[in-house]
């Protein structure tokens, strides 16, 4: 990621709004997250022309349309993989991935471990509403079995996954959680993610009043608890313990984990430097290496 200012003029949150009207349902939590993103971008002072916003498919994945930046609206589940390629080519820009719980952990779940493991230098904001919004209300990997949904008239048979625990296990170097009802907290944690060098994951609870009847604003209000003041964000064990509290009915809100290790683009640069790579390398040398 890279931080840049346009000349001397700091941009306001509204300067990151695109001209495309926002189409979410009234009361949708995604609005709060989007506002948090606008604020985070402004506070981090990112030049819109040096930002790549990339998403998959879902209500949440519509977010890039509403952001003033370079952007790609890719396929369901593929945002992280697409972003990896873009980031590696332009490590000097900021890469921001946005998407839903279904997009990220169901169809896209195979890419997630590798984004984190490889420490791809991007910010991943996951709009976690425990449901498939865009397809009108089927259960997602983060749905609680209490919810009866479109294809589960008799209740959901599956235990929900724990996104924070997954990400800590996968080796993400920045892991945080927030709730859409608190855009200020969202903004702060997303700003931290944008400024972090490495794979930064921010899980944001977001209500879907249209389809998710159990994960209401009230439910989330009761669930979230602030990460303790004395929590050591470099202690993976402590972060794992915090993340596991979700199964006990409390969800930590704040920054759980943050460490530094070489990013994938840094390692690629090291390889290129190691072989003395240069743009104007004499290709005849490569041709000649294949003479009989």
């Amino acid at each position: 990621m890279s931080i840049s200012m346009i000349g001397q003029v700091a941009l306001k949150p509204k300067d990151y709004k695109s001209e495309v009207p926002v189409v979410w349902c009234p009361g949708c939590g995604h609005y709060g997250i989007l506002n948090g993103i606008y604020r985070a971008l402004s506070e981090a002072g990112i030049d819109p022309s040096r930002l790549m916003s990339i998403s998959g498919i879902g209500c949440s994945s519509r977010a890039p349309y509403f952001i003033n930046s370079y952007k790609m609206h890719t396929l369901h589940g593929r945002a992280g993989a697409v972003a990896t390629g873009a980031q590696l080519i332009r490590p000097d820009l900021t890469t921001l991935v946005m998407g839903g719980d279904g997009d990220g952990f169901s169809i896209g779940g195979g890419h997630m471990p590798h984004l984190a493991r490889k420490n791809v230098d991007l910010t991943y904001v996951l709009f976690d509403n425990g449901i498939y919004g865009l397809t009108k209300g089927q259960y997602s990997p983060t749905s609680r079995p209490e919810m009866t949904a479109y294809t589960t008239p008799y209740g959901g048979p599956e235990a929900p996954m724990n996104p924070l625990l997954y990400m800590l296990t996968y080796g993400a170097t920045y892991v945080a959680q927030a709730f859409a009802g608190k855009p200020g907290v969202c903004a702060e944690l997303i700003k931290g993610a944008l400024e972090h060098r490495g794979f930064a994951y921010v899980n944001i609870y977001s209500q879907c009043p249209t389809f998710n009847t159990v994960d209401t604003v009230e439910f989330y209000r009761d669930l979230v608890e602030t990460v303790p003041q004395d929590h050591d964000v470099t202690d993976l064990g402590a972060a794992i313990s915090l993340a596991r509290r979700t199964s006990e009915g409390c969800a930590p809100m704040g920054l759980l984990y943050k460490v530094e290790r070489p990013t994938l683009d840094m390692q690629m640069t090291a390889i290129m430097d190691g072989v003395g790579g240069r743009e104007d390398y004499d290709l005849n040398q490569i041709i000649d290496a294949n003479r009989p």
Partner: protein
Amino acid sequence: MGKVDLVIKIAGEGGEGVISTGDFIAAACARAGQEVYTIKTFPAEIKGGYAMYQVRTSLDPVFNQGDTFDILCAFNGEAYEVNRQLLRPGVAFVYDYPDGGFEPEIPAGVHAYPIPMSRTAKEMKSYRSKNMVALGALSVLFNINEKTLLEVLVDKFKSKGTEKLNFNLDAFQKGKELAGGLVKTDPWRVADPAKPKDVIIVSGNEGVGLGAILGGLKFYSAYPITPATEIAKFVALHLPKVRGILIQAEDEIASLSQVLGASYAGARAMTATSGPGLSLMGEMLGMASMSETPVLVVDVQRGGPGTGMPTKHEQSDLFLAVFGSHGDAPRIVLAVEDVKDCIHMTVEALNLAELYQTPVILLSDGSLAFSTQTVPAPKLDTIRIVNRKRWDGQGVYQRYQMVADGISPMADPGTPGAMHMATGLEHGPTGAPNYVPGNHEAMHRKRFGKLQSVADFVKPTEVDGEEWADVGIIAWGSTIGVVREAVTRLQADGVKVKGFYPKLMWPMPVAQYESFAKTCGKILVPEVNFQGQLSHFIRSETSLNPIPYTICGGVPFTPIQIMNKVREII
């Protein structure tokens, strides 16, 4: 073809040095100014099993592996058994005897040269030297140029230390002595060295890798798969030198996704895979069509469907390459004939992707993948690099602007004032979603329409042969090399036949097919698949009425098969 056109086949068990023996002969011949075309088959088993390496060498150009061999060198009994039907009169047969564990029956007219390979290796206390003994014997028996052969061996073994080098040279010497004690009765000999040509010798896979590097590649991501992985091996070695990036993805969907992302960010980007991987890429290829993002996918075809026959040759992914995405998803499909094409058409494929902002699929195949061939060394000043049309900074930027040729300028992220959305949803000129009926039709016309000039951009399809022919043969991929020779030999026999060798498979250069057909009687289309995939497209897109000739046993055609078929239908 040329008089001193010779095919040497080495066969034995995987791990016995069959492959390296073949490589040494090929390299030695190439250094001695010969043209070389090799083919190998690896065992289907993980280790052990039957392995085979066939070197065809000649002073004249060679286009395929040949009909059969002139010389067989059998390292074990299985190698003899597998090939005994092919021991026709005149063949020279070198084999491990005695103590090789098998006693071949020598058919009348076959020239037999028993060489105690295993025994000698045992005496030298190293199983590893068996193939060197064989190589020494072959060099004496068939006039393989000793000077270049020794150079090759020294180059190969010097990095492994003097001891290892001397040991191998010793075994080589032993083989020479053993052969020296035999009486040569056959006529086969490699031609004397000619003036060395300005060539490189690479496999099809290496050729694709080299073409990619020469073509300005900056990003490569792939997932390992037989028979395509060797491309990544080549690219991995060299790409960092030009400050390009190679990564291994978690699967083929991810690899193409990464390529798409890298291309959006401004880089020339590609992946390579085989059929199973291509089957997984359909949705993302459609995304590339829809978002007009340049991407190159090389598909080194193998026996299908399913896991199929991973190590075997087949040309059966044409249907998938052309139609493998839902919806109407335009793309360009190319196919290579030989290693030279692997190099130059990879450059061109990258150009086409950039120029037309569309996915390009380049089809290679299992027989080319591992076939090493001598190829004129590429000249950098003849390599043409075409870059994508980029925004000139004038006016309001619209990513999908409606322009006459359908090719709207792109803008790299980071460019001030050209922020835009690239999307897989149907969209209007700005990239905003647009589902109005007229828009979808207009955008389809843009995406398909821009490809109308592809046939003009690439070289016209080569036509091989006389003014009028009773049979016109249309071939694609590595089958072309086989047909070239069949055409020449048939013509020499007075048969009126000619060839048509498309490399641009889709969109089809229909006018070229039509004008070819006007100069032929019957149209024969040989291909290595079951359904006759090119024949299908010829029927659907042109007025031609092709006679399909399909085989699908996991091996390429031979010239004689084509010749017989032509004689049958003429």
